[in-house]
């Protein structure tokens, strides 16, 4: 009867301190009509993946400022594969040097938003790239 509602997990892996950016993105996604499962700070990749599976999300949006993106993000991708859940896409935002982007994409991160990206750009990307299941 009704159509699929897009569900997105937004969280913050790693140890860095605040989640302002993640919250801004979460709110923007809600305002775009999506259901956002917000899991907060200090998440391990394993916790993120477990939550994404239980919540049956279409994609995972991760915010990362700590500089640990090159280890944490590929790890989320690997754990998703281990759990046969790599149909769930990952995108990320935060302080990520341009040079690291190709490596992250090769590791299975579908999109990387660098500082200065507007929330509208993110919403547009989600609409265009996260196909309804």
């Amino acid at each position, binding site marked *: 009867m009704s159509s*699929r509602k897009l569900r997105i997990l937004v969280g913050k892996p790693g140890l860095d301190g605040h989640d302002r950016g993640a919250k801004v993105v979460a709110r923007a996604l809600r305002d775009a009509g999506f259901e956002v499962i*917000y899991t*907060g700070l200090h998440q391990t990749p394993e916790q993120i993946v477990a939550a994404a599976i239980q919540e049956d999300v279409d994609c995972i949006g991760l915010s990362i400022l700590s500089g640990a993106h090159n280890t944490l993000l590929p790890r989320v991708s690997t754990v998703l594969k281990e759990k046969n859940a790599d149909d769930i896409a990952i995108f990320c935002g935060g302080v990520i040097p341009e040079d690291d982007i190709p490596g992250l994409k090769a590791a299975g991160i579908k999109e990387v938003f660098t500082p200065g990206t507007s929330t509208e750009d993110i919403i547009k990307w989600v609409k265009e790239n996260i196909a309804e299941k």
Partner: protein
Amino acid sequence: MGLADRILNNDIRAAARLMRDIDDGLESAKAELKQLYPHTGKAYIIGITGPPGAGKSTLVDQITAEYRGQGKRVGVVAIDPTSPFTGGAILGDRIRMNRHAEDEGVFIRSLATRGALGGISHSTGDVVNVMDAMGMDVVIIETVGVGQDEIDIVRMAHTTIVIMVPGLGDDIQAIKAGILEIGDIFVVNKSDRDGADRTARELSVMLEMGHSRDSGWMPKVLMTEGNRGEGIKALVTECLAHKEYLLSSGALNKFIMEKNAVILMNMLKDGLFNEAFRIVSKNGKFDKMVQEITDHSSDPYTIVENTVKGLIVTNRN
């Protein structure tokens, strides 16, 4: 294999997907729910309600830990409001429950109200059924907790816990009678805060005043400090006492019958309406009816009367 088969084989992804199909109102979900139904009716269902920020999610987390300590499997359904303007939602209850994320004995699902007003989503009952069929011993439902008309939870849960916090002060008088009637157990959380004792005392007095003698259960007021896990053991013990009361008094059977009567009534209503509407909408009949009412060549009362009569006659033949 279908989703139900996979769920009965402990496939978590299948369970998560069926919950989504239920929430999205997919017709296919019904066949799966039919298949799961014989495997339901075993879980003990706890409802948790109370104002936003009272500590519901924190207590769900603690109660979950306590039951896990007893070796029980726990399902959690946490509900947050859908924005009426955008249809979107931020579901943030998991923040307090992250430590259970990887525990295979715990399954947590966040749901948005999607327009439902009673503190839970329309899908909640069926999602609980899926968790029940998954073999969860306990299912905890956290309601939205905005209004005081969160009565739907009472019908859904064997035991309803109402969470309050100190600082309501004199406002405790303002607590609507409704909230006192829905709780089987009352909790004053944030007992570290000033006024907790007073709030608990006032609540006890109000409960005693409102207590009817025919009721075999007198709700207690407990104090907790959710953050630090204080008072959780006593709370879970009180849940057990309530469950045992339900069993020994025969109240459980009455509760289940009433719950099923309401479920059946609602499903009949939906089913009959959908079928009737399908028939009435054929060949632009419905639009024609609207037109007749609009130009006053007929009235809605006559049209509905005749339509219902017509549907029943058709079905008799």
